[in-house]
């Protein structure tokens, strides 16, 4: 990806919008099926939205997550506490490991507050359901990801990205 930037402030910063993204590997000894993963993802989205609003946010732009596993992909998102959560995708079999990327775009609070809400949502919801956050990394993970790769190969790619800079 071309990452050339100039130094002009973004249109969104002029409107008090901040974004934060994080990727993580989650694991549980007992395999997780579609219903479990979807419910966890939706709970995370709502947790983050509520925490941002409690922190003084004026508006939830969107909070989205994308979960890759060897059994398939699940996505979840919300555009606000009052709008509920929405989820699509399914797993064709239960899995013990999953890779999640979360994006939170919020108006009215600073990035560190968005970061705090996002990370709290990731950890508290996952750990509350007996799922361990094994590795996490900000602003990475999907950038060089090849979705055409085999399932074994994609896990290698994800593991490599999450291990960088350790």
């Amino acid at each position, binding site marked *: 990806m071309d990452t050339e930037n100039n130094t002009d402030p973004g249109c*969104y910063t002029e*409107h008090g919008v901040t974004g934060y993204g994080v990727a993580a590997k989650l694991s549980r000894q007992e395999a997780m099926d579609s219903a479990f993963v979807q419910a966890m993802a939706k709970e995370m989205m709502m947790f983050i939205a509520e925490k941002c609003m409690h922190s003084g946010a*004026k*508006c939830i732009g*969107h909070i989205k997550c994308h979960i890759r596993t060897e059994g398939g992909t699940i996505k979840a998102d919300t*555009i606000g506490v009052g709008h509920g959560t929405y989820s699509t995708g399914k797993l064709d079999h239960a899995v013990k490991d999953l890779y999640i990327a979360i*994006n939170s775009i919020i108006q009215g609070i600073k990035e560190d507050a968005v970061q705090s809400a996002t990370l709290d949502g990731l950890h508290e919801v996952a750990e509350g359901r007996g799922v361990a956050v094994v590795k996490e990394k900000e602003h990475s993970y*999907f950038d060089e990801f090849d979705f055409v790769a085999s399932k074994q190969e994609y896990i290698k790619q994800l593991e490599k990205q999450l291990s960088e800079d350790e």
Partner: protein
Amino acid sequence: MKITQIAGFLGCGKTTFLLKLSQVLASDNERKIALVVNEIGEIPVDGKIMEESGMQVKDIGGGCICCEVASTFAKTLTQLYKSYKPDHVLVEPTGVAVPHQVKLAARMGGRDAKISLGPAIVLFDATRPAELLDMDMLGQLVTTQLKDADIIAISKVDAVEEGAIGDSAERIRKYNSKADIVNLSSFKDLGIDVLAEHIIDWKE
């Protein structure tokens, strides 16, 4: 290579619509379609969702293509023209991008590629008109997006009553009296064919 942007505030349904629209445009195998997606959340979640659909997708991260990374956007268009030669490029800017600035950035790509500009289609979320337009800071941004639109799609019409759609249309008309207004439901496949025809027939 015709460049069409699908703009609109965060959460208005741009990604879902873009996936459906690209399938309609590509359905008769007569047109090559490429997608350019820009996100400010650092991790390009939407781009990966689109990539899984089998489309040619370019992610642009690190800022907004209407301002911070406009030159990257222009270069991406040039690269697409040279390497893939699509008939249509559908661009999803960030939900806080300004459509006329995206057009300016796209024109920069025209220096080294033969491009034309399609319509700026701006989605307006029927489920939260007051929330969008009455916000003190973001309200100005949303109204700017509406003013810049060539076509306005009232999105998620399946999720509201008929009266609410009319209310959204009335609010929209205060800011843009010229744009065509189309009712859109990506889940119910409503309005997608009409918007695809607009894009195909659009002349600068």
